[in-house]
């Protein structure tokens, strides 16, 4: 240190790391902020020249466009804000249903891919390679413009067991609807499930500490059953009523109607994502060391125990992180529904831009919506992920 002080010319300033860092700091700040300020001034000038409004006040104005089959009450003339919420509900609906379906299909395909039967395994491979290598938009167009266009008109509806009626106007599902007294059953069932979960956790913890078998699984199942059955009788017989679609005039009434747009989007989105999920799940299961399975068998666990106690906990740890990104992809990909006229957030935003101008605030709104959806999903799943990643030594 001392020698450095006496000989200040030893390090010229352009090679002194401390000074260089400060210079880099200043230069990068100036460049980045300069760039930002430049764009913002340009923008303000353009906004001024075109008399653009940048506030979100338009959300309270009346929107002149209709939305076909809104999931919540909406009609043309309600506010833009309301229309946006309708779009948001549509996005959440298609992503929620899509995530569940893609996970189930993906897991089944992964198991088929791992099957010892050559034919089944090859079929799963064909499914995976087909969906992974064509663009989602092409898949969507095939489902919507090709498959759904060959569906018969209302009078000659396809009838599938269920009964499910399929025709040009959509897919009509038979749907259980709550009867007037049915709420008793639902409330009691929910109480039963909560109670069972609490008992399950307590008993399992007891077993962990005492080592005694506390039969936590059968006890909690019986608990749920008791509450459900008593709810069934208290609500006076069947709490649900099957709402079967029926032909009335030129259309079907009742049941649950899925529009062709929703069905096409749902099918292509969940099949496409399922192919990716299948690969994730297969990779996770195959990554479990074979010795683990052999050891578990040697200890005397049966097939089911090997799977649930040894394979799955280890596979899940590998599966969850890529699964999170698949779920996020699915949510973001739901914006492609715009191309077939299913009105989710992005489509509603686009109509709003066309009608009310104000591209910038609408885009801000759309981006904030997707960003918070992404953040929320990854936040929740990361908590779960952290819980199962416990065995880090």
């Amino acid at each position, binding site marked *: 240190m001392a020698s450095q002080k006496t000989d200040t010319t030893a390090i010229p300033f352009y090679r002194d790391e401390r000074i260089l860092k400060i210079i880099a700091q200043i230069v*990068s700040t100036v460049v980045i902020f300069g760039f930002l300020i430049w764009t913002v001034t340009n923008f303000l*000038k353009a906004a001024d020249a075109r008399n653009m409004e940048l506030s979100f006040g338009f959300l309270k104005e009346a929107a002149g466009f209709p939305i076909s089959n809104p999931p919540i009450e909406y009609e043309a003339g309600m506010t833009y804000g309301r229309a946006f919420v309708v779009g948001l509900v549509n996005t959440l609906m298609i992503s929620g249903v899509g995530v569940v379906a893609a996970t189930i299909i993906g897991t089944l395909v992964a198991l088929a891919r791992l099957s*010892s039967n050559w034919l089944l395994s090859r*079929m799963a491979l064909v499914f995976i390679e087909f969906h992974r290598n*064509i663009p989602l*938009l*092409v898949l969507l167009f*095939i489902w919507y413009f090709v498959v759904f266009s060959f569906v018969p008109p209302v009078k000659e509806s396809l009838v599938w067991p269920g009964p499910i009626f399929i025709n040009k106007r959509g897919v009509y599902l038979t749907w259980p609807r709550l009867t007037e007294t049915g709420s008793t059953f639902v409330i009691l069932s929910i109480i039963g499930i909560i109670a069972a979960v609490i008992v399950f956790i307590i008993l399992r913890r007891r077993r962990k500490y005492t080592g005694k078998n506390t039969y936590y699984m059968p006890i909690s199942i019986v608990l749920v059953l008791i509450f459900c059955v008593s709810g069934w009788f208290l609500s006076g017989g069947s709490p649900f009523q099957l709402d079967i679609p029926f032909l009335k005039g030129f259309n079907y009434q009742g049941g649950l109607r899925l529009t062709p747009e929703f069905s096409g989007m749902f099918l292509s989105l969940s099949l496409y994502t399922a192919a990716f999920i299948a690969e994730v799940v297969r990779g996770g299961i195959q990554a479990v060391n074979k010795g683990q399975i052999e050891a578990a068998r040697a200890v005397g666990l049966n097939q089911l125990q090997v799977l649930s106690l040894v394979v799955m906990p280890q596979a899940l740890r590998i599966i969850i992180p890529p699964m999170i990104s698949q779920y996020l992809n699915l949510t973001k990909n739901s*914006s492609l529904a715009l191309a077939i006229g299913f009105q989710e957030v992005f489509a509603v935003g686009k109509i709003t831009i066309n009608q009310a101008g104000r591209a910038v605030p609408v885009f801000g709104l759309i*981006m904030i919506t997707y960003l918070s959806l992404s953040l929320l999903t990854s936040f929740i799943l990361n908590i779960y992920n952290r819980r199962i990643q416990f065995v880090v030594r």
Partner: protein
Amino acid sequence: MAIKEMEQDFIRPPQPPGPVKWIKDNLFSGFMNSILTVLLFPVIIYLLYQIFKWVLVGANWQAVSQFPMLFAVGQYPRDQIWRVGFIFSGLMFMLGISWGRWGGLLKSISLAAGSFLLLLAVLPVQHPQLDLTMRIYLGSTILLTLVGFLIGNKTRLKNTIIIAGWFVIPIIGIVLLAGFSGSEWLPAVQTTLWGGLLVTFLLAAGGIVLSFPLGVALAFGRRSDLPVVSGFSTVFIEVIRGVPLVTILFMFSIILALFLPVESRIDRLVRALMAVTVFSAAYSAENVRGGLQSVPLGQVEAAKALGMGNLKITVFIVLPQALRAVLPAIVGQFISLFKDTTLVVIIGINDFLGIGRSIINSDPEFVQMRTEVYIFMAVVYWIFSYLMSLASRRIESAMGIESNL
């Protein structure tokens, strides 16, 4: 005697399983398995039969076979089509050289492409767009590929020159395609006329080439000591990754103009390319960052001890190891970029998918053939992205990387 037999059994190498044993092992290994096979077999046969019947007899491929040029280049002026042909031949020549030098998958690709062109050249059908000039052009392109093969195989061309060629020819190609306004013999061609596979490949290749360096820069930016740089990179990456590509495409096609000086006008196709690039760069950045994190600190310290400068450490020590570790993820990102280029249809650019859709919508007769058109497009997309994933698997096994997925 028994011992001797056992010994022989032991010494003899295991026999390759015969077809009977293979069937027994893979199709009838157990009770459930046999039932499954018996149930699945007729289903598969039936499906295959139906598919073949439809493809060969039921389908009407007129909407596809009538417009090969439209699918390839869109509305590009037909009297200027030689420019596209010139680039295509140039790329085939480069493919030939690379085949001669490296072989492997490149050989299969060259042979497949060559035989496809040969088939077209000698196809005994009357087609307005398959006239004598076209056939001669196809034949000479095949010859050029073979010449390329000989050059690559027999001469000692440097690898760097071949790789440089792969970059130089597309750049010349883009200049050639765009032309110069006011030029007598090379008039400018508006990008609104470009279309088809040409645009799809342009967007995909351009996106890959431009997004990768940007992604590496962002990855370093995010790891930087400078708070402004790392903050900016982090926000940039996370915002782009948090929103769908459609949003970014619309941002660039509608809003970008507002943030630039009034007099500047950016071409529509370039804006789409920018959007695709920025989107892909954010994902590449995260992949590269994963790779950077996997390089042990000891490597950097050792390099420092040897007296290497920061730049040298990054270029020669850190990056090669980092990129090698995440190569599968990067290639996967490129494949999804290729598939994502289809989204430009939504902002009205006529890429391959867009051309197919406009053909269908151009004539009520073609609306009836939409199945054929969509299946054709799906097959084309499938072939190219499958080739890319095949190539990535070859590279991985050649480099000894195990891919997780």
